[in-house]
């Protein structure tokens, strides 16, 4: 039985309600036991647990019991503590099943690698008394990119001409950040649009969550490239477009070749929906279509193509 955190909290967090005071933990192995009011002790730092983090996807809340939202009692700052949770699970991508593994040491290594680089979430790893690497993450001061895009209330044409050029510029920088990882033999592992934040202070993009890994053979960065493709589809389309959402007349114009190589209902040939999308940009989107014969092999190739589109968009229209 872990000792009570009462004395410590009375001294360091007098505002914390006494009835919620929990236990002190120096060993975080049993993370399911650690909850609101408990204090995690890591070397000379104390973290008051406020709640478990949860991921909101498809309208459902998915609790992550190994991820704790905390307050550091020494600094008063909010931190996210990721405790060790080894799991291997099948991840379904369209009709494919990919075996994913959660790797605390991968995330630790990448956090060390990207220290001081605002293109990535920041944090340090401290080992608990039994050697579990606990990742202490700074809360990203920003908003999810997909939520920002989805909240826009304007016609797609206006978005595309007025806002998209800057979105593209920032996304290219985000791709360069991923290429920087790849150049060092590391993969992000879980590139999704809700893992990219827009920082409040600079408007630049910041990647989070690097603890997934997978063993691909000839294309070690294939899943990262697929993730980047999904995001650019979303950004160009100002959201995701599926065949189900179209009118019957419009749907008749869409063939399977216009849809995602992985998801047969997702339209990637967005020029058919928005004819003002230039060919050079649409060709990038089509690299992710079922009709594609050649795929991106490296992030550099994707960046080169996106940069050409950016340069063309920034030229004045005659």
């Amino acid at each position, binding site marked *: 039985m872990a000792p009570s955190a009462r004395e410590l909290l009375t001294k360091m967090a007098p505002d914390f309600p006494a009835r919620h005071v929990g236990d002190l933990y120096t060993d975080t192995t049993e993370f399911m036991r650690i909850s609101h009011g408990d204090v995690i002790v890591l070397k000379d730092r104390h973290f008051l647990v406020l709640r478990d983090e949860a991921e909101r996807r498809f309208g459902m809340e998915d609790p992550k019991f190994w991820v704790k939202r905390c307050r550091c009692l020494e600094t008063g700052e909010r931190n996210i503590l990721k405790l060790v949770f080894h799991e291997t699970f099948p991840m379904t*991508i369209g009709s494919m099943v*990919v075996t994913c*593994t959660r*790797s605390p040491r991968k995330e630790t290594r990448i956090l060390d690698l990207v220290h001081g680089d605002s293109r990535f979430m920041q944090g340090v790893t401290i080992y608990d008394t039994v050697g579990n690497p606990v990742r202490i993450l700074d809360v990203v001061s920003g908003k999810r990119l997909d939520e920002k895009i989805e909240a826009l209330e304007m016609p797609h044409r206006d978005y595309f001409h007025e806002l998209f050029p800057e979105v593209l510029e920032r996304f290219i920088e985000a791709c360069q950040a991923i290429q920087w990882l790849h150049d060092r033999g590391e993969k992000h592992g879980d590139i999704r649009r809700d893992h990219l934040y827009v920082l409040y202070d600079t408007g630049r993009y910041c990647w989070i969550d690097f603890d997934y890994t997978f*063993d691909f053979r000839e294309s070690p960065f*294939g899943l990262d490239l697929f993730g980047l493709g999904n995001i650019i589809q979303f950004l160009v389309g100002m959201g995701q477009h599926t065949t189900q959402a179209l009118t019957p007349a419009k749907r008749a114009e869409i063939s399977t070749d216009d849809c995602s190589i992985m998801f047969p209902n997702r339209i990637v040939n967005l020029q058919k929906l928005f004819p003002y999308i230039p060919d050079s940009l649409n060709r990038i989107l089509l690299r992710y279509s*079922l009709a*594609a014969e050649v*795929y991106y092999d490296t992030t550099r190739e994707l960046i080169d193509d996106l940069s050409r589109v950016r340069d063309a968009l920034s030229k004045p229209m005659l």
Partner: protein
Amino acid sequence: MNTDKILIAYDGSENAQRSVAYTAAMVGCDGGRQVEVVAIERPPDRDLFADDAAWKAECAKRIETMQAALVQARDMLVAAGVAEAAVTTRFVESCRSPLRDAQECSIGTSIALEILRLATEGGFGTVVVGRRGVSKQEEFLFGSVSTKIIHAAKGLAVWVVA
């Protein structure tokens, strides 16, 4: 292009075994041809394992399996009539292997490019590779050694045995 030197890219899979059988049938007893069977080590990702001991054990198991497969490939060629002296095998360790003690190693980013490098350096005129027959989706995510060899090969013939 040296048509007398053939390099087989080998990983011990059924497809690779078919490529050995096909090469054996093509070369047969023609004493003028040299056949080299090459396997490139591909250790599992270290991050997939909770500790280094488990990772090293898996690496060692894979090396043992691959070396046994190379012996089997050599036996297949000799049994088909290729002169023993004309068959060589080669196992290229990965630079990332925790068990490595060889001078030459594979950097491991692409088996296909490693195979083509060895073919160029060794003056091989033909590279033989088995093809799994993967779907577009699999090729997109996982990549394909044979497809990459076809796209990247220059100055040599590629036999793809499907």
